[in-house]
């Protein structure tokens, strides 16, 4: 589904990611872990097509090189980014925002816009996945939301948009234990054999709830170690210094 080959990303001649390779297949969950400032968020942004980076290499998604594809098209093709810091958009209700998004994606697929009543029923169904209050959707996108509400809202949007590839950037940060459980449950419910998830995280604790098929350790812009779910536990126990020493970095 996703193949990243020899990716090199820099900003203002400062290299952030280099010699980065990753392959993700349908049905898989990949965790990308690493200390702060190693390029985790940059990776998420580049997969989603954010401008402002100098990008070399190849990102192949569903067999197509998407390097030149604008972000909205990547989104319509099924790439979803769960933001680390979801932005506030005053004056635009979540319902209206998602209706626009869903209908754009439908248009891209050659489908008619969803009738309003059907859409509202669809939203109500999806709210259950993240135990979202019914009133929240009438509020402006993320405006005045607590940290936990913002992250729940990201997963709610993911549920509505039904992406093929979800990249979740530090979705666990800033969550208390109850919110973490709700968000993780939401992610698990949305998982199926045809979609894939990349979970970017700093801590192991999210992985108590979401069991990854692969764990990759990102350090200084590239993957320095890959393993199964036990690698996350080892990291938690020994800290990132252990990787540095082991890899002779």
């Amino acid at each position, binding site marked *: 589904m996703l193949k990243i080959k020899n990716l090199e990303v820099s900003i203002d001649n400062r290299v952030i990611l280099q010699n980065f390779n990753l392959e993700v297949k349908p049905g898989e969950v990949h965790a990308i872990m690493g200390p702060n400032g190693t390029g985790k968020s940059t990776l998420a942004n580049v997969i989603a*097509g954010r401008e402002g980076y100098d990008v070399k290499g190849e990102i192949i998604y569903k067999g197509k090189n998407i390097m030149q594809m*604008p972000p909205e098209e990547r*989104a319509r093709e099924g790439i979803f980014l769960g933001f680390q810091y979801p*932005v506030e958009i005053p*004056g635009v209700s979540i319902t*209206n*925002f998602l209706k626009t998004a869903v209908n*754009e994606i439908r248009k891209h697929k050659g489908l008619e816009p969803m009738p309003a009543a059907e859409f509202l029923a669809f939203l109500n169904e999806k709210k259950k996945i993240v135990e979202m209050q019914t009133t929240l959707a009438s509020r402006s996108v993320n405006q005045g939301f607590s940290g936990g509400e913002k992250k729940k809202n990201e997963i709610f949007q993911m549920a509505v948009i039904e992406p093929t590839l979800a990249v979740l950037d530090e979705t666990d940060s800033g969550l208390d234990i109850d919110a973490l459980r709700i968000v993780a449950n939401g992610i698990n419910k949305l998982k199926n054999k045809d979609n894939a998830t990349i979970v970017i995280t700093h801590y192991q604790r999210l992985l108590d709830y979401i069991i990854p098929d692969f764990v990759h350790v990102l350090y200084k812009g590239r993957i320095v170690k890959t393993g199964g779910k036990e690698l996350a536990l080892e990291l938690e126990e020994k800290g990132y210094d252990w990787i540095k020493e082991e890899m002779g970095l």
Partner: protein
Amino acid sequence: MQDNTDKILNDVTQGDYKWGFVTNIETEVIPKGLTEDIVRLISQKKEEPEFMLEFRIKAYRHWLTLKEPQWAHISYPAIDYQDIIYYAAPKKKAQIDSLNEADPELLATFDKLGIPLNEQKVLAGVAVDAVMDSVSVATTFKATLAEKGIIFCSFSEAVKEFPDLIKKYLGSVVPYTDNYFAALNSAVFSDGSFCYIPKGVRCPIELSTYFRINAANTGQFERTLIVAEEGAYVSYMEGCTAPQRDENQLHAAIVEIVAMDNAEVKYSTVQNWYPGDKEGKGGIYNFVTKRGMCKGFRSKISWTQVETGSAVTWKYPGCILLGDESVGEFYSVAVTNNFQQADTGSKMIHLGKRTKSTIISKGISAGKSNNSYRGLVRMTKNALNARNFTQCDSLLLGDKCGAHTFPYIQVNNKSSKISDDQLFYCNQRGINTEQAIALIVNGYAKEVLNKLPMEFAVEAQKLLSISLEGSVG
């Protein structure tokens, strides 16, 4: 797509002016020149009540104290205001109640312009007020509209029949002190249209006024006043053309729009006054003041204009966003060719909280023409969370024409900017940047340009649809 755009551009810049013919009709004119007596004479000809005469005289006296503005990026020989005839009317036309009594020449003229006034062939779904030179010739569908309490009639008629409404709203958006040409118009205006949509009424058909200059050496000074009461809706359109003449003719109009709580007014215009010949001889000087007042909560006024005519254009339709959450929109395509000059744009004054405005302006210049965008966006201190989006694109065809942009943006509070983060967030959910801006500015996404309502605007509609994205500007 590109071929299509080229064809539209080619048609509009290479085609000849199609509406340059003259109607042979007996015309009553008054002597040339402008004095207080002339102002009195116009008022007398129109059998106006006292308050109108007073308004005109005050405006005239104020006009005498003003100087013609020089700041626009246009140049033209000085206008001799004493060499203009300020009132001309097709004869025979007394008060017409039925179109059957109208002069067949007049009907033929409007037929030729694509505006059939005959009862049998009136444009479906459109009520038309036809104005030739200084007077309204005919208004269609009047009775149908009256059933809903909608008033749509010539300005002269409104002054007599609905003096209270005129007294209340005349000059309330564009006072005669506003500018030089507004003062001139207020002193000598001859006719125009008045629309009044009562509370809660959605006007079921399009309203339209067609202005035609016919007589030589005359100026055209019309006024349009549109009032939409609480919850009312109306879509209104103006079209205009003039014969081909070697002398320049002056056109100085005023349009005022008032929208109360939750009211919506869509105003569209296709301005196609005679632009002068290929050597720059002749053509209309078009100095127009158009303004809307979003007075009520969540009121909305949108301007759509397609400008292809006139030798010189000076015009800045705008909105005063007074009501909280009111919305102003301006969509414009201005095409200049040969020696045409246009200095046009929009003014959006944000006074209310969470007010929103959008300005989209496209300029296309060909030949030796000059096309300038001049716009003002002002966010006052009280306009918390106000939003504006302005986009100006220009296209230059050839190397002897010019495009200029003069934006003035005054923001007195910090809550009103769209960030890259917000745009990317929308992009990431499948919403492209243009739509994202519409969503954030208007609260909903929609087609960027309005549809023009009229059949005679098919050509103009094509112009609106072309995209100049990525061209110079």
